[in-house]
């Protein structure tokens, strides 16, 4: 099953709706709460990065019984130094963004930590693409 949600930069009203929709869909499909939560959190962080740091993008999610593959693709300024951006605490978020509760510099580290596979690519002046996979535990292996 494929889920596609457009994400608009600076649109703080709609921000988070794509991740919320994903979470609802996963629960409806019978995915366990802990797995749905991990997927929702990484999708939320990716969505917020598009809203905060890029112009526009798309969050697409491919759901199968074994894995949830999340792709966040954006048109934006790109990331000049990915290793630096991945460091906990590194953020270029301006003051007004921090006042809204963002800019801890933990979004990318959270995405890496919660996902089973994490890839990021970026071209300065073009955009950024993040791909994450969350494995769905087989029903028998759930404690």
């Amino acid at each position, binding site marked *: 099953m494929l889920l596609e949600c457009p994400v608009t930069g600076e649109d*703080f*009203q709609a*921000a*988070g709706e794509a*991740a*919320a929709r994903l*979470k609802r869909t996963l629960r409806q499909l019978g995915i*366990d*709460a*802990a*797995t749905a*939560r991990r997927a*929702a*959190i990484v999708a*939320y*962080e990716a969505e*917020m990065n598009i809203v905060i740091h890029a112009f526009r993008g798309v969050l697409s999610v491919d759901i199968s019984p074994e894995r949830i593959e999340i792709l966040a693709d954006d048109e934006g300024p790109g990331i000049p130094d990915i290793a630096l951006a991945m460091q*906990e605490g590194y953020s270029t978020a301006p003051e007004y963004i921090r006042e*809204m*509760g*963002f*800019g*801890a*510099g*933990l*979004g990318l*580290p*959270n995405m*890496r*930590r*919660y996902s089973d596979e994490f890839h990021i690519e970026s071209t300065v002046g073009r955009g950024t693409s993040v791909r994450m996979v969350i494995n769905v535990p087989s029903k028998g292996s*759930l*404690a």
Partner: protein
Amino acid sequence: MRVRDVMRILDATLLTGEDKLDQEIEAACGCDLISDLLAFTKARMLVLTGLVTPQIIRAAEMMDLLGIVFVRGKKPTPDILAMAAEAGIPVLCTSYPLYESAGLLFEAGLRGRCAWPQAGGDPHDACGGTRDAP
């Protein structure tokens, strides 16, 4: 500790979620930054925050939090409350500041999230106690 105990200890007002007062809370954290909150999930958790925005509700929903306490007497707007009601998350408001609120709950036996997860480690394995159960 139940949501209703939190309400009593913090002398708080319930703004939404009357049907959730008997939910059992096992841990709490105090956060004013969203990604800080998202960095470490624990089952059956409550957040204390001074951040009154729609985004804190959205993040709480993503994490399956069992309650939000707005500190320092901060009141959410009706649209924020409507979001919380739709997500089924009880919202409390206390006039105690963050530090005092956390202290009162801690003293009453409610613990935190334990150690900060190690870089690259599994956020669910960062400490003992109740694991983030499905």
